[in-house]
């Protein structure tokens, strides 16, 4: 094995915007959005990070600024090291980031998913459509301001919606979300249940 290369230092020498990022596991760096694609290309070509494992994003909070951070997870299949690169989106209301589909074709669907659920527009993406929710769905469900139960909208198919009278409705939470308590040996106790069962759809939550 060769001695581990200091990727962070090499990146910093080439891109002054790069800073080390606190990380519990692998090496991670922050980079300015403007340098992101160039830095990722540099990592792919010079440090053999040839596999794009994941593209995802973080929504820090509804009124945080910067609100959205795009995260790329890279793997070097020859060096057997992971690397995490993160870049904040400049615009909090309409976050955008340059696509990396030109570097790794694998980015295509990852970016579509991130666009679908987080609402981050990847500029120059060849086919930026929703991938999980249907075309025309008005929300981005993984954003912090989107409730788990959902928001009422129409079914994707107007004809079926008319015939059945069904609509996309918020799911009944009944005091949920439902979580399993860890460390319970008693399986009945460990069953996922609502944390606060004092309220449901029929009797309101006490303040």
């Amino acid at each position: 094995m060769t001695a581990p290369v200091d990727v962070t230092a090499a990146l910093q020498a080439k891109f002054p915007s790069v800073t080390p990022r606190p990380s519990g596991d692998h090496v991670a760096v922050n980079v300015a959005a403007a340098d992101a694609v160039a830095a990722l290309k540099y990592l792919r070509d010079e440090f053999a990070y040839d596999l794009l494992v994941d593209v995802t994003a973080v929504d820090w909070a509804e009124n945080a600024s910067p609100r959205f951070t795009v995260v790329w997870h890279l793997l070097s299949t020859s060096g057997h090291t992971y690397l995490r690169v993160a870049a904040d989106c400049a615009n909090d209301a309409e976050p955008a980031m340059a696509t990396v589909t030109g570097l790794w074709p694998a980015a295509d669907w990852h970016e579509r998913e991130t666009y679908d659920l987080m609402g981050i527009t990847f500029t120059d993406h060849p086919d930026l459509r929703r991938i999980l929710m249907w075309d025309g769905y008005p929300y981005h469900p993984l954003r912090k301001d989107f409730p788990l139960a959902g928001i009422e909208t129409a079914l994707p198919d107007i004809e079926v919606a008319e015939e059945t009278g069904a609509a996309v409705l918020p799911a009944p939470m009944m005091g949920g979300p439902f979580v399993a308590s860890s460390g319970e040996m008693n399986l009945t106790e460990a069953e996922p249940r609502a944390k606060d069962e004092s309220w449901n759809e029929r009797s309101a939550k006490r303040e």
Partner: protein
Amino acid sequence: MVSPNTELAYNSKIEGEVIVSRVDAVINWIRSNSIWPMPMGLACCGIELMAVGGARFDIARFGAEVMRFSPRQADCMIVAGTVTYKMAPHVRRIYDQMAEPKWVIAMGACASSGGMYRSYATLQGVDRILPVDVYISGCPPRPEAVLDALIKLQDKMKREPSAKRLTA
């Protein structure tokens, strides 16, 4: 003296070539013993539905082994799995394409009520878009439970006024 007929089965010597019955009974007998299912396998329950079709459980005993992937040839849609809102209109369309008479079995917690998926993406029970005849509990239900639902559906079919509906 007339000797009592102790035979339980049909005896052509006594009754000739004629069987007397009700039209409903005949139609329902035929229908309930040749339910061709439309396997709407949408999630993990679909795997269990495949097990029902296997030799160990032998769904052919109930005449329902002919899984038809064309709705035109199917009688009973078995909704096996999580119905997302994105999938729901397609499920309904496939149901609409099935020829009358048709039945629906909601297999598993997800198809019956949304199951553990209390989320923005999941239809909370397929009965919001389809008329369900039999619900099966379980996550996933055992194959025996599916066969039990099939028997329940057969019982239900046998009570239907089929002749009246045919001529109505």
